[in-house]
């Protein structure tokens, strides 16, 4: 869209104002073309969800025709089936329990450590940080297969405890990296001032730094929550029935490969996509801060 800007030779105009006006006009046109292109991209990007929504609300005889049926009477039977006829509700509750526990444990363990990494001048901090990066890159199966054996041996296979432990461990390097970035932004003078006023190091951390770290902790929390909610591989390996989470449930339903369950599957997708997209749009500030923080400081 900047073709026009590029090819017009820039004449030395005696009066700059028309040139400036011309440039602004071109910028506006460029902006409008960019917006149009983005709307097309956005539609393509959202089309899988729109199609799942259509599949969920079509009557059964219209849902799987080829070519697709476009005129139909929308109904919510699939959502009712999903809620009443499957374990969806129970699995959803369990997934939230697992995700929230993971966030709480990850932040309780990760925040003090990240603070120390950000403040300690020695060489240990950088070494651990590099280790954290390395650990973040390890294939999860390399951690989870031994976990599988251990949890069988300890009799905690297919429990939330085993799942939360694995999720906290696997994500701890990333949680640390993210939090260290935020703690570095809090000026050291604040800790020092608090300690001069009589706080212990831990008191300074708890009373002064943690309250200031609100956005950073929320960012790390939102991230860990999303990751725990999304995790498929770890949950697939460590659960079977009782501790199953949403991604495992969905994949198992899909694996049944039975057309009569496809609409409930579509309904389940939509029931999950809508709240997650809302969270993404509203918590966008935190997501951007987190991804950006990880990008710049990682």
């Amino acid at each position, binding site marked *: 869209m*900047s073709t026009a*800007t*590029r090819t017009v030779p820039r004449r030395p105009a005696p009066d700059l104002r028309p040139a400036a006006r011309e440039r602004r006009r071109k910028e506006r046109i460029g902006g409008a073309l*960019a*917006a149009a292109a*983005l*709307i097309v*991209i956005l539609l393509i990007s*959202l089309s899988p*969800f729109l199609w*799942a929504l259509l599949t969920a609300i079509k009557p059964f005889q219209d849902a*799987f025709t*080829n*070519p*697709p049926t476009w005129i139909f009477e929308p109904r919510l039977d699939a959502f009712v089936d999903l809620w009443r006829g499957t374990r969806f509700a129970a699995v959803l509750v369990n997934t939230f329990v697992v995700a929230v526990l993971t966030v709480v444990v990850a932040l*309780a*363990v990760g925040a003090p*450590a990240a603070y*120390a990494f*950000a403040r300690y001048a*020695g060489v*240990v901090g950088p070494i651990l*940080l590099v280790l954290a*990066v*390395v*650990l973040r890159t*390890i*294939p999860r*199966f*390399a951690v*989870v*297969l*031994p976990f*599988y*054996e251990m949890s069988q041996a300890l009799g905690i296979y297919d429990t939330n405890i085993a799942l939360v432990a694995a999720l906290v*461990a696997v994500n*701890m*390097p990333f949680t640390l990296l993210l939090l260290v970035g935020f703690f570095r932004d809090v000026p050291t003078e604040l800790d020092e001032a608090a300690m001069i006023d009589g706080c212990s*190091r831990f008191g300074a*951390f708890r009373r002064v730094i943690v309250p200031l770290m609100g956005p950073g902790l929320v960012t790390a929390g939102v991230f860990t929550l999303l990751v725990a909610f*999304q995790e*498929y*591989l770890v949950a697939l*390996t460590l659960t079977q029935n009782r501790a199953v989470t949403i*991604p495992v449930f*969905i994949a198992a339903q899909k*694996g049944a490969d039975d057309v009569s369950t*496809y609409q409930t*599957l*579509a309904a389940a997708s939509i029931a999950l996509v809508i709240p*997650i*997209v809302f*969270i*993404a*749009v509203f918590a966008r500030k935190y*997501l*951007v801060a987190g991804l950006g923080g990880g*990008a*710049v400081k*990682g």
Partner: protein
Amino acid sequence: MKPKEFAAFTAPAIVLMGGLLIVPLVTTLVWSFQNVPVGQPGVFNGLDNYVEIFSDERFGRVAAFTVGYTLVVTAAKLVLGYAIALLLARVRRGRMVILGLLMASYVVPTVIGALNFSWLFNDVFGGVVNQLLAVVGVHVDWLTETGPARTLIGLHALWHETPFVILVLLAGLQTLPEEPLEAAQLDGANWWQRQRFMILPLLAPLISFVTLISIMDSLKVFDSIRIITPAASSVGTESLMAFVYQVALAESYRLGVASAVNVVTIVITLLLLIPFLRQTWKGARAA
């Protein structure tokens, strides 16, 4: 901060990572030299597992597919992500709303996203993409033929992961200094020249960051392959991690062989990571 305080603050995290990350990783390393049937202690068998996987044709196919997938997807993601970030940077009103909605395919659980994405290519679900292709008289068996299935897995990766690239590069574009760029424009530098000689060099650290993240993640691709092509081995879309799963928990229960594949994957990943680790080390030392 005193060493004692440092130790106290970091102890819980170090114990946790030691017990729940390092111990399992060491176990994986030990298992890779053992014959380990599930539920039984392993017996050392030297390099047998490595010899087996390196002489296994299937492993060769799996490794080649995974590396090819990683290179193609990473390159395509960077180009597409950069293009969309440039578009977003030109838009004033509604930029953040568009960005938020574009993130949808990134934040939705991969299992659900892959499922919904593959439905567009599935004739049972109306075959939307094939309907569009019918205009040019083409019909593609996306889910069962090797070439199309690989393309589909790659397209899914682009759909799912490009938003992350967009997010990072847009953040970079927004922090570019405006004055030198305007000066270059007034001096007659055209769009290409400004991209090539000013913007791309300034964004280089971010580009290398997203490249490395993409390489690491792509080498470990698993969720989408399980969902889109459950019979990955016969379709030709089996990745390293899908192979590990089959060997360890589905087709056979050979944790030793699976661990050897994990170790090989770790070695490949670390080799690709060296420049990034050096950068992190320098950053941490400088701070």
